[in-house]
């Protein structure tokens, strides 16, 4: 099963990478351009994702046992009743969006742009993977302490 998952995600990633490179898509620029210029061009990616996911979930959940918890709010989502978890999610969401707008793109777009030789994205990715390491060495401990305190 894990080999299937790895291979399937690899193949899907190749298709998504190709499509996002050719369409210059981004999942954060849509909001930025809308708030900044009322421009809705990049919102098309976000609308497409929402439609694709919603149609897919609605189509498949009747036939797949792996979707027995759909929709999640009716199935006691882990952590959803915990205020500290929601606070951490809110802090995370705020910071993620703030720095993604300053970076001029979401992580997926930065990975795609790096393949075109965009130095901005290459330095972004160096920081991104350093950030993952820093999170697990330092921040995760602080977050766990915060959850234990409340």
């Amino acid at each position, binding site marked *: 099963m894990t080999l299937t*998952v790895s291979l399937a995600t690899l193949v899907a990633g190749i298709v998504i990478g190709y499509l996002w490179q050719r369409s210059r898509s981004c999942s954060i620029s849509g909001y930025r351009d809308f708030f900044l210029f009322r421009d809705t061009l990049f919102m098309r*990616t976000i609308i497409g994702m929402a439609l694709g996911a919603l149609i897919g979930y609605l189509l498949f959940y009747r036939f797949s046992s792996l979707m027995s918890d759909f*929709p999640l709010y009716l199935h006691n989502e882990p952590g959803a009743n915990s205020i500290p978890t929601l606070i951490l999610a809110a802090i995370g969401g705020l910071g993620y969006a703030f720095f993604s707008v300053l970076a001029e793109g979401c992580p997926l777009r930065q990975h795609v742009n790096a393949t075109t030789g965009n130095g901005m994205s290459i330095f972004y990715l160096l920081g991104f993977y350093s950030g993952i390491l820093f999170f697990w060495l330092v921040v995760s401990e602080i977050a766990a302490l915060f959850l234990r305190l409340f």
Partner: protein
Amino acid sequence: MVKVDKLTAGFFTGLWAAIAQAWVGVLPPSAFGICFISHPNDLFNWTINKLFGTSFYVHDPSIDLPVLTVIGVLIGASLATIQHKEFKFKMPRNPLDHYINGFMVAVFGLLLGYCSVHIIMGLMYGSIIALTGFAAMMVGVTLAVRYIKWRVRR
């Protein structure tokens, strides 16, 4: 020259998340078909764990073999770049700024557990945590836009 509409690219991405959940078994957590915070995290931590014998956290689908979305995207985007002869290295003016932005996005993204692609899937799947994160994201975008405007005025 191949051109792809943003709506099509987005639609396929969303549909893949549903297929990954329902038929491939990329879970738990639910709605985990695509995430550009958690999937890079899993690949990176899995590699570090194998190389150095550490035990950094990876999600369940990546315990034996990691999810390879990141590698796939890099291959797919490289193919498109090569096909259309679009590779051109450009050195940024302030590399440290971009390094810091990437660093902060990873830290805050891992705190949230979602990226801006994954959060749409979470919302469509009915996640309360995704809804909270999404609302906070909109505040973050608003603050960043105000900051950009303020910086331009100065």
